[in-house]
């Protein structure tokens, strides 16, 4: 630590500018994108399908990274947005919402409506949470309660499939082209991941992102500068919810079915683990965290049947102790 302090001398203007420009994550993101773009050339269908799903979870993790890592909002019900996105998309494209027919029942309309409705829902929830000045564990408990309620509703609501969920979702189609093949879906999800990544990275690097981190670090101080912290948190919550809804809708598109487990407490905690392990303060690290943990889960459950969850627990504890900023967060932040 001492050597850090003595080596950094930066009255020079160009060096101070470098505070805003963090080259490494950008290069790593580009490298990762290149690998993913070329991946289908391996023609390994199993992994193409796997990666498509993993990226959906990755988008979900990135949305939580914004809310938790940058906004400092520990949300135990983030899957509510994921699940709502999946359900709303499904209900619309299956023509199950009265009044939504014709152009309103197309895939694109479904996707947009899902994202819009969920972010509006987040604004309403956020209004009560943040103007109610809920923080820390209290906020966690309330969001957890919301997740449990949402799951109960999904299980007991017969019209939306109840416990069994909804099946046979029509494929995503744009102007007559249907995304059915694994490769088409892969690229569709990859493009969505890239858009989500660029959007979120832009937000966290913008002045809004700096203010958000300032509020996270010291809310009283940020407010004394004239920033309305509740308002900033609500906006963050809504953006995070929108991206989570996008990933939920993508999940419905890729797996062609939705069920109450998508909306509940279980997935909400899982995504917290992915993001914590990957590195909650770095968008890309959270994405990689989701990929890593989900891959480990798949491998370990094949390898050691029921004991995998024990191993994962040990791995989680070790990672939190060894890498408090996340496994990837350490390398990807400047």
């Amino acid at each position, binding site marked *: *630590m001492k050597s*850090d*302090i003595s080596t*950094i*001398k*930066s*009255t020079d*203007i160009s*060096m*101070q*500018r*470098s*505070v*805003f420009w963090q080259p490494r994550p950008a290069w790593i993101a580009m490298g990762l994108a290149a690998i993913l773009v070329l991946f289908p050339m391996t023609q390994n269908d199993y992994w193409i399908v796997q990666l498509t799903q993993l990226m959906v979870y990755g988008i979900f993790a990135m949305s939580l990274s914004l809310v938790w890592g940058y906004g400092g909002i520990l949300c135990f019900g983030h899957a509510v947005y994921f699940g709502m996105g999946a359900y709303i998309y499904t209900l619309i494209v299956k023509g199950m919402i009265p009044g939504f027919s014709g152009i309103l029942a197309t895939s694109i309309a479904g996707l947009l409506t899902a994202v819009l409705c969920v972010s509006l829902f987040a604004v309403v929830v956020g209004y009560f949470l943040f103007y109610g000045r809920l923080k820390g564990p209290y906020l966690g408990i309330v969001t957890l309660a919301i997740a449990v309620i949402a799951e109960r509703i999904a299980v007991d609501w017969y019209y939306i499939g109840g416990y069994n969920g909804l099946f046979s979702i029509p494929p995503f189609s744009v102007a007559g082209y249907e995304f059915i093949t694994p490769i088409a879906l892969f690229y569709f999800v990859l493009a969505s991941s890239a858009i989500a990544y660029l959007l979120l990275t*832009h*937000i966290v*690097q*913008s*002045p*809004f992102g*700096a*203010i958000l*981190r*300032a509020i*996270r*670090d*010291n809310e*009283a*101080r*940020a*407010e*004394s*500068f*004239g*920033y*309305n*912290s509740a308002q900033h948190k609500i906006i963050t919550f809504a953006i995070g919810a929108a991206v989570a809804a996008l990933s939920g809708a993508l999940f419905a598109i890729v797996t062609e079915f939705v069920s109450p487990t998508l909306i509940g407490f279980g997935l909400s905690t899982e995504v917290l683990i992915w993001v914590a392990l990957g590195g909650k*303060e770095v968008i890309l690290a959270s994405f990689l965290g989701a990929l890593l943990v989900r891959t480990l889960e798949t491998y370990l459950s094949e390898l050691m049947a029921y004991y995998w969850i024990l191993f994962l627990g040990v791995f989680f504890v070790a990672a939190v102790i060894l890498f408090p900023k996340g496994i990837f967060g350490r390398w990807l932040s400047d």
Partner: protein
Amino acid sequence: MTIILKTERLTKKFGGLTAVDHVNMTLSKGELRCIIGPNGCGKSTLFNLITGTYKPTSGRIAFKSKDITGKPVHIIGRMGIGRKFQVPGIFNQLTVYDNIRVPFFRDQRRSLFLKPRKDSDIHQKITALLQKINLDDKACLPAIHLAHGEKQWLEIGMVLARRPQLMLLDEPTAGMTAAETRKTAQLIRNISREEKMTILVIEHDIGFVREIASRITVLYKGAVFKEGSYETIQSDEAVRKIYLGKSR
């Protein structure tokens, strides 16, 4: 002289305890004022009332002849009252540079979702401020790595960045070495003189008070006990008894 801050019979009760008791205080534009008093005399509560952190039980606060009693913190902040907290209120994870940058975003005309233009004069302003508070060589360091005294200076810089008309400093020299304290006193005197800013300081360190204050208000048990110059206060027997005498 124009009056910038005026409190009228300002009172705050916490249950049975009256922390601030009918305080009438006026502050003229450009004045540098110290508030002293023994522990628990209501100094910090008074600050919390002025900044809107607490709502007064009764009484009024007027800032620039506008009633600000009970207004929310961020509104009072926007009206031109800046505050330095007792515990350094800085953004630990942000760099020193970004700590100073955050208050500047309020002036940004473009959407906050757009990156600021690199050629903006804000960079010059930030650099000038960093020089003023002697932290220009630590701009890239996360604020958490600063020494305690440097954190206090950083926070003064952050408050200055907002160009408030009234700056409240809550124990700016707490935990500082003697040399740091002298440097801080000099910094505050400079700000007062160069920026023509009204400054209200809470302080314990009598050496510091002697160095900076033109006028002193003594608080005791929540009420104004005495007001006057350093010499008057120092020679006042009653004040010596409740405060100065004990601390020496």
